Every structure is written in structure tokens, then in C-alpha cells.
């Protein structure tokens, strides 16, 4: 393949990564923004989403379309409810103290991971995509001074991958309108701005916290349901999404939703393109060091307006 089509392919894969990452990271950003706590177990909610998606599609039996639709509707709700339960039983008791919350969510991380290992097992299991047509993409070629459209071998994307990118956009738009247009969004933003004042105005902050925590985890689970037909479900799959979401949330400015989405796009696309030129390990080293230096020298994030 020539370089042009190759780059195009990398951008397509990058867009897919960015779409899933934007969903996962906006969940983390939401939780950090509203509750001012760092949820280290976020990656495990992602993992649970994938594992439960496998479980639901198994229950639904033969039809991949039915199973997938069921998983898409049921799994994020289940995971969200579990997260809200964690919030009400654990985080509420430690009064959202930032450091103790980190310790408690690290504990939750291990509990979720190990319980999955005990029940689901150490195998990676695939979920059949509901539809998976291969779409060949054309490329423009300049030869003998005339433009010519042709279909290079290997330059293609599946319809399912396009669907994931589209679905991610729809969900993010939904989240945006939830935050800006609805009463619940208003209450969440009020809690985010000033917890004490929100309490004084009679906003049920405790319930808002539980909802925000559940919604954040639900976003991660939804991202996982979308990606699981491409990437298999495994009990250790939560590590990378957690790290990448951290990176995205920090670069985008802690707690800022638009910043997180923009950063997800940047990271996802550059991840696809950088890994053409460098080894993936070296790319990860640069990415982690980059995050550390952003936090050290620009604690508000690259475009952040939020409080550090």
C-alpha cells in the first residue's frame, strides 16, 4: 500500500479509538467535575460493561442483533446501578475525602476485577458484531496529470466500526444536552460549582452524587459494549482505558467535558498515527510523561478553564 491510503487507514482506526475513548473519558470527567473525586475503578466499570455484554448476548441466544441491542440497553444501566450502589455504600461513608476515595476505589478495582476472574474466568471471549459488512474505500491517484479514483487493496472499514463512531457522537450529543438543557443537568452543574450553596438551596446533593457516579460508570460500560465486538472481553481489559481516560481528562482540563472530548480526539487520532512510526511501548512512555509534565507545568490542562 502507498503511504497515503496507509495514513487514511490509520486515521480511520484512530477515529474509532477516539470515539470509544471520548465516551469513557467523559464519564471520568463527569465524575471528577461534579464530585471532585478521582475514580480509579473507572476502568473496571468499562471491563464489567464488556463482560456483561458477553453474558447478555449469550443469554439472548442465537441472534447477534437481538443480543447486541439487548446488551446496549441493559448493560450500561446495570453497571450504572452498581456504581451508584458503590457510591452510596462506600464513598458516602468516607465523605468523599479525596485521598481516602482513591484508596477505596483502588480496593473496588481489585474487588470487581477479581470477582470477574472468579466468575467469568481468565479467558478472553468474543462477542459477534450485529452487522459487519466490509466497505472498501476509494483513494485518489495522480498519474499522467489526470486524477483517477481507485480502490487500493486493504483500504477498508467495516460498517460496524462506522456505526461505533456514529453512536459515540449521538451519545455525546445526548450527554451534552442532558448537562445543558435538563433540570438534572442544571442540578449537577450547580453541585459542581458550589456544593455548600447547592445544599443550602435544597438540592439533594447526595442523590446527585450517586446519579453522577452511576452515569459516569454507565458511559464507560456503554463504550465497552460498543467496542466488545471488535476487542474481546477479558477481566484485565480495564487498565488501558483507565490510563488513557486519565490522560484525556488531564489534558482536557480536569472535569471539563468539552475539553475531554477534544483531548480524546487528539489522543485517539495521534495514537493511531504515532504507532505507525514508533513502537507502541515508546508511544506509551511519551504519553505518560507528557501527562505528568502537563500536570506539573500546566495544572489546568492544555485548554482547561476548570479549577486545578
Amino acid at each position, binding site marked *: 500500500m502507498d503511504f497515503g491510503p496507509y495514513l487514511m487507514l490509520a486515521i480511520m482506526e484512530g477515529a474509532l479509538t477516539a470515539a470509544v475513548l471520548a465516551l469513557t473519558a467523559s464519564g471520568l470527567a463527569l465524575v471528577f467535575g461534579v464530585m471532585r473525586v478521582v475514580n480509579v475503578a473507572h476502568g473496571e466499570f468499562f471491563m464489567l460493561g464488556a463482560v456483561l455484554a458477553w453474558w447478555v448476548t449469550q443469554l439472548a441466544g442465537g441472534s447477534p442483533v437481538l443480543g447486541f441491542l439487548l446488551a446496549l440497553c441493559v448493560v450500561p444501566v446495570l453497571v450504572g446501578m452498581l456504581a451508584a450502589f458503590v457510591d452510596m455504600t462506600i464513598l458516602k461513608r468516607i465523605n468523599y475525602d479525596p485521598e481516602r476515595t482513591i*484508596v477505596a476505589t483502588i480496593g473496588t478495582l481489585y474487588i470487581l476485577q477479581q470477582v470477574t476472574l472468579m466468575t467469568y474466568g481468565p479467558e478472553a471471549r468474543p462477542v459477534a458484531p450485529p452487522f459487519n459488512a466490509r466497505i472498501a474505500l476509494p483513494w485518489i491517484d495522480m498519474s499522467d496529470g489526470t486524477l483517477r479514483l481507485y480502490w487500493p487493496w486493504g483500504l477498508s472499514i467495516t460498517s460496524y466500526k462506522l456505526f461505533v463512531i456514529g453512536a459515540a457522537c449521538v451519545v455525546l450529543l445526548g450527554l451534552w444536552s442532558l448537562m445543558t438543557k435538563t433540570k438534572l443537568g442544571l442540578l449537577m452543574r450547580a453541585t459542581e460549582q458550589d456544593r455548600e450553596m447547592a445544599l443550602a438551596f435544597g438540592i439533594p446533593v447526595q442523590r446527585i452524587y450517586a446519579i453522577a457516579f452511576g452515569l459516569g460508570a454507565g458511559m464507560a460500560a456503554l463504550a465497552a459494549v460498543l467496542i466488545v465486538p471488535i476487542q474481546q472481553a477479558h477481566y484485565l481489559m480495564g487498565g488501558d482505558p483507565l490510563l488513557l481516560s*486519565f490522560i484525556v481528562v488531564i489534558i482536557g482540563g480536569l472535569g471539563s467535558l468539552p475539553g475531554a472530548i477534544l483531548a480524546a480526539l487528539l489522543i485517539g487520532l495521534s495514537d493511531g498515527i504515532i504507532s505507525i512510526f514508533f513502537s507502541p*511501548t515508546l508511544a506509551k*512512555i511519551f504519553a*505518560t510523561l507528557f501527562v*505528568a509534565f502537563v500536570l506539573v507545568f500546566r495544572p489546568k490542562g492544555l485548554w482547561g478553564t476548570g479549577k486545578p
Partner: protein
Amino acid sequence: MMSDSKKDCFAHGGVLLFLFALQFFLPAYHHGNMARIMVLASYAIGYNLIFGYTGLLSLGHAIFFAAGLYGSGLAISQFGFSVGVALVIGVTAGCVLSAVIGALALRTEGVAFMIVTLMFAQAGYLTVLYFGEYTRGDEGFVLAHADRVLWGVSLSDQTSRYFSAFSLFCVSLIMCLALVRSRFGKVLIAIRENEERTQMLGYNVVWYKFCTIILSGSISALAGATYALLFGYVGASFASVEYSIYPLLWVLLGGAGTVIGPLVGMIFMFYLIDLSSGVTTAYMLVAGLVLVFLAVFAPQGVMGEVRSRMWKWLS
């Protein structure tokens, strides 16, 4: 009636005496375990200085432990240095690394500090994997028995291994005890309790924190270097996030800000995992449950509770 200060010294001396005497009674399996526990407890003591006494929650101490581990391990396997030199190289590596990371990370505070330390440690872990040609990555490498001889004594022999681990633990514990009883230690506790007020009283808070990070990183590296020399195995898992979480777990369990707490937490956690791994492969479940339980019900840990209820004089 003894003064509180004397009681404190006697209590810690008693613990050391007990650990020394223990080697004559323990069966072989637990003999080896105790050597390992004392080395890792020294690592936890290093961590406790920064977390328990100064109140800085670092999530990246594995990088210092690994600096010692790989510093001395690679010095032997790649360059053929002697054990003594390798130990010095390991500690120096940890010392330099902690100075660099400390200088950068101390520009941040709170949650940002945790994430910065976590990210540096992750970069360190990935670097170990990246240079897999020398480090053998996750698989790790083994140091030969013949290379692990200090002053004619083989460190792989059981008795000398216990004794070396005990010496390391003695050094760490006495250093920690002396430090927290000194003026310097009191300032650290003041920083933990109220940073603004300490600063207002004229102490250079950042300088104290910086020195503590270097000290803490060096002790962690010393423990890592000793681990490589005593047990002869160097692997990437010691640089992973888990090994940054473990000392936090041990210290919290035993009691943050108590000198003996890291050892208590380490023994408890080691045998809890040892026993449960006989029952299930998902033994980290125990660690998770303990962490949540500690965060919710006992933020002071075992020795912290003992101090606040019984022995108020305990350092």
C-alpha cells in the same frame, strides 16, 4: 516509672530483639517468608516517611524500589560488578531518581501529586519493558548464586539471608525512629497536620518535603537492591502499579505514621494472601476488600488504633 521516650525506645528495641531471636525457632518455609517480609517492610518504612509522616500520597513508589532492584541487578548481570558496588549503584539510582521526580512532582499537590507520581512510575515500568533486551521484561532475569557473595558470605544461604534482611530492617527502623523523634520529624508531622500554619511559622515546607522524598526514595531503593541480592530475581512486576499500591496498603493496614506499623501491616497482608492463595487464584480480592474496609472503618490502621487507645507514647 519510665519516661515515655524511654518506653518508646524499649518497645522498638524489643521488636528488633524478637525478630532476631525468631530465626532460631522458625521452620524453613516461614524462615524464608520472614526474610522477604523484613525486606518489603523496609520498603514500606520508606513509603511511610512520605505518606504517613509528611502526608503526601504517592502512587508511584514502585519506581524507586525498581530503581534499586534494577540498578543493582543490572550492575551485576550486565557489568559484572561486585555485590557491594551493586548495592551502592542501586541506592544511588533511587536517590537521583527521587530527587528528579520530587523536584517536579512537588510543584503539584493533592490529587495532581498522586497522578503525577503514578504517571512517572508508569513511564518507568514501560521503560523497563522497552529495554527488554537487557531487562527481559515481565519474565525478568535471575542472578546466579555465585554472583551474590558479599565478603565471602553467600547471600543465597538461608541463615545469612535472614541476617541480611534483619540488618536492613534494623537500619531502616532505627533511621525512621531517630528521624521522627528529631526536630526534622516534628516539622514533617506539623506539615501533615497543617501545612499553611507550618509555612507561616517560617519553615520552608517545600524543602522539607523534598528532603523527605529523597530519603524515602533512597530507603525504597535500598530495599529493592537488597531484594535483588537476597532473592536473586529481578522482574518487571516489581515496577508495576501493584508495587506502588502494596506499600500504601501495608502502611494503611499497619498504621500510617507509626514506626512499627509497616511491619505489622506487611506481616498481616503477607499471610492473608499466602493463606487465601491456597484457596483461590483471585487472592487480590482479599487486598481489595481490606483496602475498602480500611478506607471506611479504620483509617488509622492497627498500630494507629493501638496508639490512640493504649500506648500514647508510641512513635
